[in-house]
């Protein structure tokens, strides 16, 4: 009985530590965001009062609201475009046999290994060429470099796992490939599409390097860059309360998504990687 008791206590202590280290920094950010004035500079482990002035301060600056909308717009459009391009492409890669298929998939996969910095100077030129500098479309366009390979890869693996029989009847009826995608595959693919869409959304929402480089005015910025650029008039006047309030605002939706779609996100993250 005794060794079992200690074993179980030890196990739950480990579990408690894992949970604590995972959520404490975010908890502390929430706590700090609710403090202002002198309270900010005392180390507290538990909330003392609810002071929403940091939130009011951030949201009353119209520009932060605009920046949130920028992020929502960019991430949503990125998800829609990359899913649309990836569904048709992965149908071809998964269900049609043709020469060079493996090489093609390899090429797509290797693009996802590209360091973003390696394309930065070339992409900067392309974006200036299309006159997209300081436009949100520059981000939507450039984010394809990491969302597309990933979505194509996961959807292709998913489509391959479906049995051949499901499209046989449709082929016999002489349905076109596009009809087959629309009528046969799309209804089956919703789970995989929700997963990849979520991951693409989170990735686009968090991206920093391109957003830092291709946008130049406050009103156009997305939230990660906006938060990185909040600063006081001197090194000693960094508005930590405001920064934490902004951080909580942009992170809460993501934490919500993770809690709701936990299973889907886990399966999306591990798809492809484990199968390889």
């Amino acid at each position, binding site marked *: 009985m005794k060794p079992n008791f200690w074993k179980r206590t030890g196990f739950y202590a480990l579990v408690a530590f894992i949970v604590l280290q995972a959520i404490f920094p975010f908890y*502390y*950010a929430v706590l700090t965001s609710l403090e202002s004035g002198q309270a900010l500079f005392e180390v507290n482990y538990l909330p003392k009062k609810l002071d929403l002035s940091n939130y009011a301060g951030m949201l009353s600056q119209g520009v932060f609201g605009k920046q949130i909308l920028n992020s929502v717009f960019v991430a949503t459009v990125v998800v829609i475009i990359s899913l649309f391009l990836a569904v*048709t492409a992965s149908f*071809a890669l*998964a269900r049609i046999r043709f020469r060079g298929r493996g090489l093609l998939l390899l090429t797509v996969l290797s693009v996802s290994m*590209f360091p973003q910095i390696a394309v930065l*100077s070339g992409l900067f030129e*392309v974006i200036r060429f299309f006159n997209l500098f300081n436009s949100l479309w520059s981000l939507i366009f450039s984010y394809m470099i990491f969302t597309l390979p990933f979505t194509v890869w996961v959807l292709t693996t998913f489509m391959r796992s479906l049995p051949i029989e499901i499209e046989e009847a449709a082929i016999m009826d002489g349905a076109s*490939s596009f009809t087959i995608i629309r009528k046969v595959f799309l209804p089956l693919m919703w789970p995989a599409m929700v997963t990849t869409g979520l991951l693409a959304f989170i990735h686009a929402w968090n991206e920093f390097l391109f957003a830092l480089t291709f946008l130049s005015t406050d009103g156009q910025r997305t939230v990660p860059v906006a938060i990185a650029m909040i600063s006081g008039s001197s090194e000693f006047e960094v508005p930590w309360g405001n920064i934490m309030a902004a951080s909580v605002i942009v992170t809460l939706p993501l934490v919500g998504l*993770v809690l709701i779609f936990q299973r889907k996100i886990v399966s999306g993250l591990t798809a492809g990687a484990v199968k390889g």
Partner: protein
Amino acid sequence: MTGTTTQSRLSRNRTRSAWLFLAPMLVTLAIVAAWPLGRTIWFSFTDASLDMMNEARWVGIRNYLEYVSWGDGQGAYYGVLADARWWRSVWNTVMFSVVSVSFETLFGLVIALVLNQSFKGRGIVRAAVLIPWAIPTIVSAKMWAWMMHDQFGILNDMFETVGLISKPIAWTASPDTAMIAVLIVDIWKTTPFMALLILAGLQMVPRDMYEATKLDGIPAFRVFRKVTLPLIMPAVLVAVVFRTLDALRVFDLVYVLTPNTDATRTMSVYARENLFDYDQFAYGSAASTLLFLVIALITIGFIMATRMDLEGENS
């Protein structure tokens, strides 16, 4: 007879539609990836600057390495490869990657083993573990910068209470601890990803395997070493490679948490500084190209070593 001709016409039709379906994606990838990469490499051999990209002229490998003779038998080397700051950033990047990936693998393995047990509230624990992964890197950097604040930071307060340190540490500002600060935040943020990948590998180990060892009364640690570890090794290796490639291009965390210090500057940060802050566009492109080469070599090595099943023949 007619059967085979319709068959082949059908498959020819399908092949044609395959390329039609692939075209939009391929064109997009060509414009956002292949072409810019080619241009970056081209710029690295020119004298391009931010304002004069179109008039860029070929200058050979001058941005990489050039010996300039001063005429009196003496001279000096210039270029990225002769820049001590570049080599410092290479060292920082390699150090960062090795240390962070090692710790992430170790902690990820522990968390995965815990999550693989069945206990009450496992779902909640798994959700909690995912939170650091979901938080944007910039937000993590700011949250930890505040926790690591030299005067008002909670981390110093904790360590002082426990007695680990006697006086507050300026985690991010001091060159001695800046890299440690970056590593702490990265390990905290990325361990969940590692844990999930390893957990997926663990869940593919058949349950009967454990039942058998339990009946034979083999100690748990031996079971782990002799049975579990060899079985999940492929999953762990894939996770390690993915993470290493990711760690080698680290940018946001370093740029925001510890700006402008030799102690943490990585290859990506070095390249970006030269490209846009110092107006050394061609020189920065050369640094980008070198980073690309390093990552490409590792990727190719990985694909060859694992002989991935790309044609889908075995599925």
